[in-house]
């Protein structure tokens, strides 16, 4: 009897030990495995297409305007009031597409353009005046635009305008401040690239048309009928290229990439830019980066032949409304892994994010906070950044 009890105890002890040891062994193996190189065995192997886009000598970017709007609360209030983030942007009754005494969320492209078409593109002051009187929060409209001055290997230069702002008044003022008006009039700017159809990047199009209506225009293929019509109504008379999703080398050292992605306010597709600087590496330039900075950098890695990441410029779309969520920290950490040597961020990156980048020790190029840009933590209006060997 005593021996049977003892055997029972021994068996119970063994089973208890087996259960504890089994759990410890399983969890321990999990831990060791997740930190070992074996963990990558299930990942698909990434082989870059290594597309050669050539090289250029340097680029200099002038931030014409990064302040797309001036008051976050007004902008978000309007979007919520009109029905939320999926509402068609042409229905807001924001400038320039406003009817008389425009009511929030009750507008349309047709009603708005009818009021201003007669003044496009040569009498924008009149159109601006009408918008200031009738649109919803017209004073909140700013715009995004930058000039990229590229030096090719043979020493020649090409100028690219990325985006054309939003408010006619603000965009024109910024163009004049940076001499863009004269460059356009003298045909010094080779092409206008529109990153995406959002109001703050595209709706100021007639301002560019006022100075150079024949400028070659590159827009992502996902433009909606209103956007396509607006190009015509703005007075554009040059060639329009609707860029299909994927990589598009344009001249040595420069290519654009269209990401086929849905974006808030009923927009589809974003076009970003890659420059390959000789002896330095790749510079990625973006309007808003709705595709996310990770996809932007990964797309380069999977498609383009280049030595290393050198720099990035533009809106990185992390905290455009200056909010913060712990998951954004992952983006901040991830950015560090790409080894950028120079980061010029602004616009929808968010000031909070720029400060987090600085705290993390990233090579952020600071700004001067002039012309209504709010903080020196990032490149503001009128600031410049150079990427060269």
């Amino acid at each position, binding site marked *: 009897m005593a021996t049977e009890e003892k055997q029972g105890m*021994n068996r119970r002890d063994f089973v*208890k030990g087996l259960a504890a040891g089994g759990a410890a062994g399983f969890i321990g193996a999990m831990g060791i495995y997740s930190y070992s190189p074996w963990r990558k065995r299930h990942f698909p192997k990434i082989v870059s297409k290594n597309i050669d886009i050539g090289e250029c000598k340097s680029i200099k970017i002038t931030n014409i305007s990064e302040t797309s709007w001036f008051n976050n609360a007004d902008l978000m209030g309007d979007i919520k009031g009109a029905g939320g983030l999926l509402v068609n942007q042409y229905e807001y009754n924001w400038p320039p597409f406003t009817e008389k005494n425009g009511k929030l969320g009750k507008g349309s492209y047709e009603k708005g353009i009818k009021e201003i078409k007669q003044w496009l593109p040569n009498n924008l002051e009149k159109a601006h005046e009408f918008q200031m009187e009738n649109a919803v929060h017209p004073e909140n409209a700013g715009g995004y635009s930058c000039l990229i001055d590229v030096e090719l290997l043979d020493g020649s230069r090409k100028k690219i305008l990325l985006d054309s702002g939003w408010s006619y008044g603000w965009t024109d003022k910024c163009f004049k401040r940076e001499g863009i008006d004269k460059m356009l009039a003298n045909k010094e700017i080779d092409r206008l690239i529109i990153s995406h159809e959002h109001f703050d990047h595209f709706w100021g199009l007639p301002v560019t048309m006022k100075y150079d209506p024949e400028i070659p225009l590159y827009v992502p293929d996902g433009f909606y009928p209103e956007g396509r019509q607006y190009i015509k109504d703005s007075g554009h008379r040059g060639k329009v290229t609707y860029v299909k999703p994927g990589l598009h080398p344009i001249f040595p050292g420069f290519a654009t990439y269209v990401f086929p992605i849905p974006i808030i306010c009923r927009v589809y597709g974003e076009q970003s830019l890659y420059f390959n600087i000789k002896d330095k590496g790749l510079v990625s330039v973006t309007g808003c980066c709705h595709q996310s900075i990770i996809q932007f950098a990964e797309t380069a890695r999977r498609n383009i032949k280049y030595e290393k990441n050198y720099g990035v410029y533009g809106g990185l779309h992390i905290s455009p409304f200056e909010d913060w969520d712990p998951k954004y920290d992952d983006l901040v950490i991830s950015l560090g892994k790409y080894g950028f040597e120079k980061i010029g961020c602004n616009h929808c990156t968010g000031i909070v994010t720029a400060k987090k980048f600085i705290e993390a020790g990233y090579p952020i190029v600071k700004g001067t906070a002039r012309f209504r840009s709010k903080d020196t933590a990032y490149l503001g209006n009128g600031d410049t950044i150079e990427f060269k060997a």
Partner: protein
Amino acid sequence: MSGQYKAGIYAGIVLGVAVYFLVVWALPILGRLNWMFI
């Protein structure tokens, strides 16, 4: 702690590690099978 308990722990650790790796290695293989034809 009895000798049996200790022996159980050692055996359990070996078993736990074995089961984990079996799961990690075997599941993707099983996942590739077309279960409709089994």
